[in-house]
């Protein structure tokens, strides 16, 4: 088990390294930031000077090494438009995003798992029918659209919840969290249902019943423990999805998080922010993935004992 964890961790670090190179290259290829910083009518010397200042005249590998060394010491550079350290900007915005995704993730599991289990246990019943309908609908609607619909219903028509912003407590979190969680709930529900259906057909579930085990334990102990494994793997994907979705959803709900920060930075060609945030998201995802792998190994004795 500990060897497995070490192996997975080394993998994670290597992946992170590769991602950092890719991020660096893509940002460099996406356009010349100096053109944005220097006024159009400025003389060519100013342009050259700015390039030197940002050390964009160096060889690309040198630029990467410089950047990497800074990143590792916590220096993510300075925003080219806001003239503030990128690290400061991100630290300021990060709690909002974390709060949003954590709530959305909890919401996804707390709703998706039980409904999926119940739908499988009562296959063909009314709730199963509803759940399957919702799964198709939930997976077919883009989340910015869902966000707008939610705002119209709950903020504009019913006036129950605020449409935008963050100042003022949990009320402000509900709509954006539900919007981000919408698609993953549908996915978790569907996957849990199909995984449970398969497991409920298995011989070991039959054996549990032959032993006289209560039906609730058959479901949650004997079946769910096995059916949860694919769902767990999927939850790594959910995290990617949520982080990605936060860019749009934070914009729709004027949520002052990292997602909105990066979207603004893209418009402004503020490449230090973009590369830092993308790297942050990647780190976030790779860590989440690693944690999922470790939990998976812990739950699956075939890996735990090898």
């Amino acid at each position, binding site marked *: 088990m500990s060897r497995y964890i070490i192996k997975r961790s080394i993998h994670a670090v290597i992946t992170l390294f590769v991602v950092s190179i890719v991020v660096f290259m893509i940002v460099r290829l996406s356009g010349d930031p100096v053109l944005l910083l220097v006024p159009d009518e400025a003389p060519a010397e100013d342009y050259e000077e700015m390039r030197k200042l940002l050390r964009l005249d160096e060889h690309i590998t040198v630029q990467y090494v410089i950047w990497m060394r800074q990143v590792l010491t916590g220096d993510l550079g300075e925003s080219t438009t806001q003239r503030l350290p990128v690290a400061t900007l991100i630290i300021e915005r990060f709690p909002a995003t974390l709060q949003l995704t954590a709530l959305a993730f909890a919401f996804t599991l707390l709703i998706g798992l039980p409904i999926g289990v119940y739908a499988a246990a009562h296959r063909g019943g009314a709730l199963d029918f509803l759940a399957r309908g919702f799964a198709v609908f939930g997976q077919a609607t883009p989340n910015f659209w869902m966000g707008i619909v939610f705002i119209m219903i709950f903020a504009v028509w019913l006036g129950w919840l605020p449409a935008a912003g963050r100042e003022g407590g949990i009320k402000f979190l509900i709509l954006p969290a539900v919007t981000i969680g919408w698609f993953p709930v549908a996915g978790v529900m569907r996957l849990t249902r199909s995984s449970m259906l398969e497991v409920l057909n298995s011989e*070991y579930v*039959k054996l*549990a019943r*032959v*032993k*006289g*085990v209560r039906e609730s334990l058959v479901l949650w102990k004997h079946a769910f*423990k096995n059916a949860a494994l694919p769902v767990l793997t999927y939850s790594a994907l959910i995290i990617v999805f949520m982080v990605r979705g936060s860019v749009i959803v934070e914009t729709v709900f004027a949520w002052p998080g990292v997602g909105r920060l990066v979207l603004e930075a893209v418009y402004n060609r503020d490449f230090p922010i973009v590369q830092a945030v993308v790297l942050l998201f990647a780190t976030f995802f790779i860590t989440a993935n690693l944690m999922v792998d470790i939990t998976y190994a812990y739950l699956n004795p*075939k890996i735990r*004992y090898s």
Partner: protein
Amino acid sequence: MTQQMEQTETKSYTGDHLLDVKDLSVYFFTRRGVARAVDGVSFHLDEGESLGIVGESGSGKSVTALGMLRLVPPPGEIVKGEVYLEGEDLTKLSGRQMRKIRGRKMSMILQDPMTSLNPSFAIGNQVAESLSIHQGLRGKTLKNKVVDMLKMVRIPAAEARVGDFPHQLSGGMRQRSAGAIGISCMPKILICDEPTTALDMTIQAQYLELLKDVQEETGVAFIFITHDMGIVAKMCDRVNVMYAGRIVESGPVLDVFRNPSHPYTISLLRCLPRLEAVERLESIDGQPPDPHVFPSGCRFAPRCPKAQAICHETYPETTVMTGTDHLAACHFPGDWK
């Protein structure tokens, strides 16, 4: 043997037999129509006895067993019949009462030991579960009992294997673990579905010996479900031959082997030498009928070498053969040597 005597003397029920299955029918209501997987099956079992149920794949052996435990999976349903265990009709019990029967009075070792153990739980836990459900054992007592059970099925170094997971065990050890789960609460009846198909020859023989010893120690009554007449000969006192959801011949093993009266039984016995290689009964010409559309006459008639007109028209009455307990459902029983 003495233990068996005692049990007969102290039996608390009024019926004649420990288990009395009467006219049990289990149908599957599928999209293609109604599959009459088990169609009016009656038999009985006494304390400490061993009964074989033989028949081709799909003849309804496993479904009969699941019907007795009331664990037929949907879209299957018990449509008719009674199952008396110690004089009590199981088909009338509530779900909760039935759970107290399963694992405690009647248990089953499922067909495939490779898939019937839960991959997520240690073997000791899986044995412990029925003991804690039915006997309320906890802690140290439970642990000791689990080890005893693993010892009873002769799992070597039982103490050390309690924490092993199914994937760490060989096929034979899994089979034994499944046996330990089945026997743990000392049920009156243990159904063994295909006890040996997954095992090679020597391990198969060992396992059968083991089951015999367990029976001697505990006085449990066995129902062996198998394709293999060889196992029936070795293990059973009586045998039911099933074909297409019905029992076509039943009786004491000696009578049935000496004097097989249904042509299907005869062909099963002819297959015997080849069956030792654990083969399905393909050596009989033709296919068993589809349970959705059974023929209206004798269900074996389409494959029977000597079928007459009447065989295709009406289902044969059951005839008493040699001895009172030897029955055959054939229009021309015993004429087939």
